[in-house]
Every structure is written in C-alpha cells, then in structure tokens.
C-alpha cells in the first residue's frame, strides 16, 4: 500500500515540475513530503527554500485546509490521502 500525499503546484511553479499540476509523494511529515517533491524536481528547490534550507516567506503551505505555520510547520504529520497545496503570497501597491 503506497502512502500517497498529493502536492498541488501553482501555475507559477509548474515551469519547474515539467508542467505538472500535481505530484504524488510519500512521507510522514510536511517536511518529508517537500524533500521528496524537490528531490523529484530539483529546479523547484530554490523557489521553495532559502540556501540555508528554510521555507521562503513568500510561499504559503496548506495541508488540506490548514496553514502549516499554525500546525507545527514542517514537522506537521501527514497521512495517506492528504493534499498539500503551495500558495504563493501575493502583494503589491502603488
């Protein structure tokens, strides 16, 4: 039985995932899922993580409907059937 967690990729990042909208991964935590995702699609890594390995501030990660900032960040546990969404932060002004 494969422990699949689906990661949804926003349009802006599909240039780094061979145009895929979703990627199936395995893993027991958000951090493990993101490691698998970036191992499968290395060009994606610098867009999600800083050189010292921290999640970039302009990337929001949702596990199902919850922002992982409030659930334990990358140590948040995941289970089969969960979906992880990458949501770009969007802001600006004049």
């Amino acid at each position, binding site marked *: 039985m494969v422990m699949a967690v689906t990661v949804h990729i926003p*349009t*802006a*990042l599909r240039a780094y995932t061979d145009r895929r909208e979703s990627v199936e991964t395995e893993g027991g935590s958000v951090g493990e899922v993101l490691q698998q995702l970036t191992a499968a699609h290395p060009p994606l890594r610098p867009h999600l993580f800083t050189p010292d390995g921290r999640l970039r501030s302009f990337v929001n990660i*949702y596990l199902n409907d919850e922002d992982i900032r409030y659930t334990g960040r990358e140590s948040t546990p995941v289970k089969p059937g969960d979906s992880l969404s990458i*949501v*770009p*932060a969007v802001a600006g002004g*004049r």
Partner: protein
Amino acid sequence: MLRLSPQLLDRIRAHAERDYPHECCGILLGRSEPVAEAAPGADDTRRLVLDVAPMRNAHTASPQNRFEFDPREHLQVQRRGRERGLEVIGFYHSHPDHPARPSIFDLENASWPGLSYLIVAVAQARAAAANSFELAGDRSHFIQEELEAGVSQEGAAA
C-alpha cells in the same frame, strides 16, 4: 500577451471603482497557450482570461496604497479553478490616483515570471487605463505585454 473579453475587463474596472479609494485585487483565471508563430526572443505565451475572481484586500493597515491576498481565499480560488479546468494565469490590482505602471513595491513583491500582472488606474473614482505586465526571468523588472480586450486600449493594440 494577455487576452480577455471587454465584459471581463469591465468587471475588473467595476471592482476597482467600487473599492476606491482603496486598492482592489483579484485573480485572473483561464489558460496559457504557446504562440507558435512568435519570433525568437518575442513574447511566446498567450494567456486567455476566462473568468476573474475578486479578492478581499487583506492589507488592512494601508489599503489605499497597498494590497495583499488572504492566502486561504487564494487557496480556495485555486481549488475552485482546478475543479473547472481553469488555471491561475495572473493577478490584477488597482492604482487609485496613480498611473497603471508597476511600482517598486510591486516589483519587490512579485515572486514569479510566467504570469500576467494587470494594473488598472483609477482617477477620482473612475477606472482609467489598464496595462498588463510580466516579470522578467531574472525578476529585475517588469515587461509590458500586449493586452487585447477586444476594444481599443491605451498601450495595447486594438
């Protein structure tokens, strides 16, 4: 190049007028397609807007000159779009009493190339020029792209 119907552009302009003197913001939903006949080095992507999703301006501290998406609302729009076969192809926001050109603040906050950033100027509560931009590959500046809305537009071909 960004293409949308006059009706969709009118919805964006109406949103910009409704929220004046605050900035409005929203999401462009549709699809991207390669332009086969594009000359080398020219804009080789055509983005077609098929729907627009107005968003709440979550920048409550200074909404008259800043905007910010609520990420949870953004997630919901992404999801509903996916269910309808629509992609997020860009974002729009308004510039109250300011030209329809990206600001330094827009550049500092724009994260990824390959999307359209549509800006609508609002002059004294009336929507004025609309222009669309794409972030350069190295993120150092915005490049104005052709905006085709089925009607004559400032800064774009008819």
